[in-house]
């Protein structure tokens, strides 16, 4: 057991519920390192939705809440407005964030409320047995699309940019150090921060979509099929672009509310 894990994890809820080689554990690991290097353990609160990724904050010895399906962001918004001094991390999955909770997600991004949303994208509904998700690639065979997926996938990063998020990044579990730095930046950023993490699911996505059950080989697929932003070739759609997409300063939602409150009190 690492020293950091002893400091940040609830010992009585261990071991993890994740399958062997699941990327969720690596994301938890990176989050712990990011929080520890900033030294803001007491300021952090986490919420999570339903799905494998919903279990990530459950092991953290912080203020955490495991909420209903797709509604991790609304709960976090309420928490942020009632306790503005907290830095809130929301862990959601792809089906949770842009599937069932898509409307909550785009409106939280539009408001530019100070949340850090970490979306774990494993391309499939892993916990319930491998049904197709909004991010499942075209023509991929899953349990609910045995002749190939006929729907085009959602791009969470482009959706966040279009909705007005002020910090948007995408990394994979192979790029673990960059992910840690990105979580650190997002925690310090004032405004809606969105990080998409491509994560391996060796059990469901590995068996059905990637045809590769070994977690390390799935991480190699992420390494070979991604290209850093700014280095991509024009017109080449075959590789997934990773990196930092947006990092801009805009007025945050709770500051608007504080201004309105001050105006009302003055008049």
């Amino acid at each position, binding site marked *: 057991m690492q020293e950091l894990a002893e400091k940040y994890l609830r010992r009585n809820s261990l071991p993890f519920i994740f399958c062997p080689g699941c*990327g969720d554990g690596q994301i938890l690991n990176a989050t712990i390192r990011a929080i520890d290097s900033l030294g803001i353990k007491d300021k952090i609160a986490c919420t999570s939705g339903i799905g494998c990724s919903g279990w990530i904050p459950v092991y953290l010895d912080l203020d955490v809440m495991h909420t209903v399906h797709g509604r991790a962001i609304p709960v976090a918004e309420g928490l942020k407005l009632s306790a503005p001094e907290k830095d809130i991390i929301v862990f959601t999955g792809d089906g949770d964030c842009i599937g069932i909770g898509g409307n909550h997600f785009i409106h939280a991004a539009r408001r530019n409320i100070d949340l850090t949303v970490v979306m774990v994208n494993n391309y499939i509904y892993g916990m319930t047995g491998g049904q197709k998700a909004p991010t499942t690639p075209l023509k991929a065979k899953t349990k609910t699309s045995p002749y190939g997926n006929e729907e085009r996938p959602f791009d969470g990063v482009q959706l966040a940019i279009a909705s007005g998020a002020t910090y948007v990044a995408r990394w994979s579990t192979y790029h673990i150090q960059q992910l840690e730095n990105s979580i650190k930046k997002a925690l310090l950023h004032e405004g809606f921060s969105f990080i998409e993490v491509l994560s391996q699911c060796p059990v469901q996505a590995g068996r059905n979509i990637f045809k590769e059950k070994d977690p*390390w080989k799935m991480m190699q697929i992420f390494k070979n099929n991604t290209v850093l932003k700014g280095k991509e070739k024009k017109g080449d759609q075959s590789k997934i672009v990773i990196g930092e997409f947006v990092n801009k300063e805009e007025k945050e939602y709770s500051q608007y509310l504080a201004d309105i409150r001050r105006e009302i009190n003055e008049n």
Partner: protein
Amino acid sequence: MKINIDEQYCQGCGICIHVCPKNIFQLSGKRSKRGYLMPETVNEENCIECGLCEKYCPDICINVVKDRVKK
């Protein structure tokens, strides 16, 4: 220098075996109490303390104990 792998939490995914630049980890063939195939360490003196195994471990169970004195 000591590399501890916590048998209680390791699930034998094998990521540490591939991620180590000095090939210190290898599959031992032994099973832990929970039934997972455990990795073991060989030639620990080659370790350069890069910390990649600690960072990539999904079960947060590898601990590289550094014996260098902090200045």
